[in-house]
């Protein structure tokens, strides 16, 4: 691994440590977020209320530097609200100003969409283009956001007045990360009694800004992808995992009270598997390796594949239980070599 990549790796690990000091008890989620930053993938966070989703994203945005914008998903939010807003100025003249997407222009590094499932499908579809093409058309021209990374979050508790994200929108996210409450008593006590965690703005302010140069990330990500090699044995392993996500019964995977032949409606997409490999290569880079190992694949498989496997309607009401069980079984049953 060349020196530049090694230096970046050191910075990435320090960045991760800094985030870990800011958000307690979320090591795995933070590691996944860091991987997504260096793999240039968008992230959907899901979790309960007040578990630190927004804090985590703000801390990452602060560490990355660059422009940061956020918008709250509401039922009356329209796509135009992301692009511009109109108002009367102090002279009473109507004015049109750029909205959160266009305001920072090409410098927009982190776009945080809070409560994405409260927004309407029209908004989701605009976001699809932003995520897939890193561009948007407005005012008769195309605006490019070469450094944008979208973080969205979704409240797991409330389902009323929400719009479920379509499969196409979910597929655009590289990872879907669950944020659960920390289960370690030490962390819980610290979060409850340490006043450092009571003032979120101050907490975020403590993260060193611009620790990672956001405008270099695209090039760095390309270098990582080119440097980390994958062997034929590993390719076969990934292929087996991919096929098993579509036809688990062919790999001897059985779940309780489930007809395996009828379980899966749709397995992972090719885009999903390319995201898996991108994320796995970043994981290998962070472990200071130049070749992909099965453990790299396994580390990111649940967060990159979990939201890409769609169950048949008859089993979808049990997906909270079946999907993690299926993914664990796939990873435990398929050998490499």
């Amino acid at each position, binding site marked *: 691994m060349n020196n530049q990549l090694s230096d970046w790796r050191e910075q990435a690990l320090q960045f991760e440590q800094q985030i870990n000091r800011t958000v307690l008890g979320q090591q795995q989620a933070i590691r996944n977020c860091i991987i997504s930053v260096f793999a240039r993938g968008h992230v959907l966070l899901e979790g309960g209320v007040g578990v630190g989703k927004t804090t985590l994203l703000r801390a990452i945005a602060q560490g990355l530097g660059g422009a940061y914008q956020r918008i709250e998903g509401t039922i009356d939010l329209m796509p135009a609200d992301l692009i511009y807003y109109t108002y009367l100025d102090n002279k009473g003249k109507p004015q049109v100003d750029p909205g959160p997407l266009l305001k920072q222009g090409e410098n927009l590094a982190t776009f945080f969409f809070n409560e994405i499932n409260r927004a309407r499908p029209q908004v989701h579809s605009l976001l699809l283009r932003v995520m897939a093409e890193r561009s948007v058309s407005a005012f008769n021209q195309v605006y490019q956001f070469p450094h944008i990374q979208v973080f969205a979050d979704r409240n797991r508790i409330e389902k009323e007045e929400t719009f479920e994200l379509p499969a196409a929108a979910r597929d655009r996210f590289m990872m879907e990360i669950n944020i659960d409450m920390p289960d370690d008593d030490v962390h819980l006590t610290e979060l409850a009694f340490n006043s450092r965690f009571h003032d979120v703005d101050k907490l975020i302010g403590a993260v060193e800004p611009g620790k990672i140069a956001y405008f270099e990330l695209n090039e760095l990500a390309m270098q990582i992808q080119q440097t980390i*090699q994958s062997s034929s044995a590993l390719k076969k392993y990934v292929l087996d995992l991919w096929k098993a996500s579509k036809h688990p019964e062919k790999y001897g995977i059985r779940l309780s009270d489930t007809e395996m032949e009828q379980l899966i409606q749709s397995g992972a997409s090719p885009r999903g598997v390319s995201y898996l490999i991108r994320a796995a290569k970043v994981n290998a880079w962070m472990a200071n390796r*130049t*070749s992909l*190992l*099965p*453990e790299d694949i*396994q580390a990111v498989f649940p967060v990159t594949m979990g939201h890409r496997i769609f169950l048949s309607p008859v089993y979808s009401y049990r997906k909270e239980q079946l999907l993690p069980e299926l993914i664990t079984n796939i990873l435990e*049953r398929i*050998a490499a070599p």
Partner: protein
Amino acid sequence: MQLVKILIKSFFIVLLLNACSSSFHQPITFFQVQSPRPFGYVIGDEIKRRIIVEVRDGLALQYRSLPGKGEINRWLNLKKVAVNKIKTSRGTRYQIDLTYQLFYAPLEVKMLELPGFTLQFRQFGKMTDKQVPPWYFTAAPLRELAIRKQDGKEYMRPDTPAPFLDNTANQIRFAMFLCIAMLAAIYLAWVYGLLSFLPKYQVFKRPCRQLGKLSEREFASMLNMMHGALNQLNGKPLFQHRLTDFFQRFPDYQQLENEFRWFFECSNRYFFGSAKQVDKADVERIKIFCQHCLQVERGQR
């Protein structure tokens, strides 16, 4: 013609006289004594006698007129007296069952008598009797008649033993069921690990033997073989980053931790790394690793 008239008149007169006769007013309408065979009894035998009496309404059997249970005479005992009273359309039917037991040991065939007795029925203070006749039967000696007196002893000749019933089919079935039960017991003992003396299946035995035949040109097969054995032991594919969990489940192999880690690094290097060249030392080291695993499996380490 005159003669025919006289005959018809006589017939009717006889019929009327018969109708007025006392037979229509007989209090006992039916009487029967059922006795068993009258011969072939030996000491200790039971003799059952049944008396069936049907009487008109109003007549009641006097139970004290029945012979009492116990000793009738010195060789006859009345063991059981049972009376079954049934109401019929014409009156009452009594079924009297008497069970005698014989205690007479004759030296030759001898006729004996079950004594008769009188049944009494009562109606409005008036008694009606019915005689049950005595019954005669012969009793036979238990001892043989021709007694050998050699050596001053006499002996009893036993009966010819009864022939056995053919139970071959039962024996075959029993043997089959016994075999099935034994096989089930052996299987259970094997499942519960009670057959400790039997040679156990050893995961690493076959790989160790086969690894010995392979050379460095078949390094991939060697690694695959070893991976297969480790996966079989683990019950699922074993990966390097799950070794800690593996050692918790199989603590006996903890002593080989360094060798495990070396093996996985070697395998990762060969299968997933860029370097494909094989070191001869690695070939030997894998064989030794397998031998060590086999020794742990056999409890020799």
